[in-house]
């Protein structure tokens, strides 16, 4: 972060120059100077590596050889992915299951808690803070480790069940349940969408509720006919964001399975499978191909969401105009 604080110094004395047009131009250029750290970052860290990875996806590149020695193999990586690699399709299936279950549950709990917290009450901000806390720990490794030990055979959750005389399962080590514990972990971190929902709820004009009350509407009707439509842009925003996040799940699956996607591939999320292909099996060309397909699919899903949004997202300012 030193670059942006250093660069203004040289530009400032350059500004007071004769000639208005020159000056205007200089201001533009000064803008570019200010922009350059970001621009270089975009090019160097995002754009160029992305293009290189696109190229690599058509090669047999391994991280152990220089880039220039990678052999061009055309669409072979893509052919293998779609026709020959069983674990690829398994990972796709795991990821879709994860996203389809975790995203709606997370949004629903975020909205439910936001509704509960949307009131004036002594100490309400403490509650808000507490509910937000898990998401601050976000994708942290420590949290995943704690989660694993909680849902072990002799973990805290089973001790809790034992109080009621229920014998628990080895949740994280059971192929039928491992993914569910990951979903639960994701759902529990509902803080970020919750805060956005809270902000959205505050924007709903109180007059609408008052008018509805005068008309004798029940709380449920108010929720369905006022809250949900007024909140729909926020719901949409959260849905897009969480869907993208959901597909990209990695950390918790990595920690739970020691980086293997086990037991028996039950937690083999797409990103984890990609990581294994690139860094464990040293098949970076193939991993790049996976990454590009992933990017296109997530892009397509986002476009799809935007298109369906037209039918249910209600922007109040459109009508005012």
């Amino acid at each position, binding site marked *: 972060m030193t670059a942006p604080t250093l660069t203004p110094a040289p530009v400032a004395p350059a500004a007071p120059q004769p000639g208005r047009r020159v000056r205007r131009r200089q201001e533009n250029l000064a803008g570019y100077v200010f922009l*350059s750290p970001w621009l*270089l970052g975009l090019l160097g860290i995002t754009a160029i590596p992305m293009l290189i990875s696109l190229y690599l996806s058509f090669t047999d590149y391994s991280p*152990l050889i220089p880039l220039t020695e990678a052999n061009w193999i055309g669409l072979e990586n893509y052919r293998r992915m779609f026709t020959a690699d069983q674990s690829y399709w398994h990972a796709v299936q795991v990821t879709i299951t994860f996203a389809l279950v975790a995203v709606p549950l997370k949004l629903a709990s975020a909205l439910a808690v936001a509704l509960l917290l949307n009131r004036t009450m002594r100490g309400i901000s403490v509650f808000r803070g507490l509910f937000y806390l898990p998401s601050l720990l976000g994708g942290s490794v420590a949290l995943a480790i704690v989660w694993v030990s909680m849902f072990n055979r002799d973990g805290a959750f089973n001790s809790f069940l034992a109080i009621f005389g229920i014998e628990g399962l080895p949740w994280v080590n059971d192929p039928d349940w491992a993914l569910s514990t990951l979903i639960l972990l994701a759902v529990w971190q509902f803080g970020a969408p919750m805060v956005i929902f809270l902000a959205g709820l505050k924007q709903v004009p109180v007059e609408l509720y008052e008018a509805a009350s005068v008309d004798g509407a029940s709380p449920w009707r108010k929720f369905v006919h006022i809250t949900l439509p007024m909140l729909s842009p926020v719901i949409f925003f959260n849905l897009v964001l969480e869907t993208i996040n959901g597909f990209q799940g990695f950390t918790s699956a990595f920690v739970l399975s020691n980086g293997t996607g086990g037991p028996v591939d039950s937690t083999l999320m797409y990103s984890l499978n990609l990581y294994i292909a690139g860094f*464990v099996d040293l098949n970076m060309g193939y991993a790049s191909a996976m990454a590009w397909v992933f990017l296109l699919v997530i892009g397509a899903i986002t476009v799809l969401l935007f298109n369906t949004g037209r039918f249910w997202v209600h922007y109040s300012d459109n009508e005012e105009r």
Partner: protein
Amino acid sequence: MEPITQAVTPAQGTTRRRLLAAALTVPLLLGAAACGGDDAGGDSGKTELSIFWWGAEKRAELTDQALALYSQKHPDVTFKKTWQGNQGYFDKLATLTAGGNPPDLFQIDDNYISEYAGRGVTLDLTEYTGNGKLDVSKFPESLLKYGEVDGKLAGVALGENTQGLVYDKTLLTKNKLPEPKTGMSWEEFVDWAANVTKVSKLPGTQDASAVYQALWVYLRQNGKDLYAGKQLGFDEADITKWFALWKGARDKGATPTPDVIHEGNASDVSKQLVATGKAGTSWVWANQMPELKKSTDNELGLIAYPGDPSAQWARASMYMSAFRGGKHKDVAVDVINFLANDPEAGKILGTDRGLPPNLDVRKQVAATVEDPNMKQTIAVMDELGKKYGPTAPTVPPQGHSKVRSELIRVAEEVIYSRQTPEQGAAAFVTAAKAAIGAS
């Protein structure tokens, strides 16, 4: 600061191109300044070698001491040491290599040596053995050979080990149970373990169906092998028999429940069930005994895997390899030579990486070692060493580590009863062929 003033002055008679160039160079130069300093130290006659290994704290301590001794003898050589646990080590090494700056010296094992050697990352040490810079005259022939990939010496063994079955002695004595013996058949072993479960209420043994080195010994006992050159050395029927053997063991109650077996299949030594107290026996490498001992207060015993022990062999537990593109290759080779052959270094390193590769050093270490667990390891490995058959496998081909993870995946499918042994065998053969690129 100079680049900044330069960027200002030309702006007096501004042209767009010049300012743009300035805008681009400033951050670049700042970046370059931040990256500078790489070459420092080169002119003072000092050589700094980077060295990277995996292991526990004990290994770091011993390696530190050995390297300090080298620096003491060669004051112009210093080391930039990096070490970490086994998990994630090879990811990091691959990343460093991809970035174009792998360490000058790095520890590697037979899971990956073919990958690195096959792609020209490792320095071919053959010529150094010819000109006397690397002394391998005191190495056992087969141990040296185990470092050769496609006729090139890709790494020097820093330790020798062999398969070791570690059992909980305290548990057996407490329950008045007999100890397992080297040479007992697989069936006898399974019955023994089932009996341990029955009497002690602790599962007798970890399920070995996902343990590749156990499968390897089993195959060799049946006249097969894990690999035949760059092909698989076994067929579906062999794997079916293997999976069925362990299915039988599970049915008899010789092993823990699937989730516990899965826990024990983690690569971490400290997760081995004999160390965590979740089973009476674990399938490890003999040199890991002292490491296991750290996690448990119980006394541990060490024998060969079941079946004919002549199927076992002296394996290089790990190698030290040098980077082919390193700046100080001669010094790097000299350090390898030192770690492998110097009597004082050998004394410091002990058997942490396995038996010392140099037979003279090995003898000396065996005579002076004080750690009781190391002593026990040496005694057992000496005993087993006399029984090794005449042929040892060559170093596994590229894709071996994938074969290992596929074995775990498929074996667990069978363990969790999602596949029959026959289905598992078919799946494993297909996956293993794909992994090593065999036809």
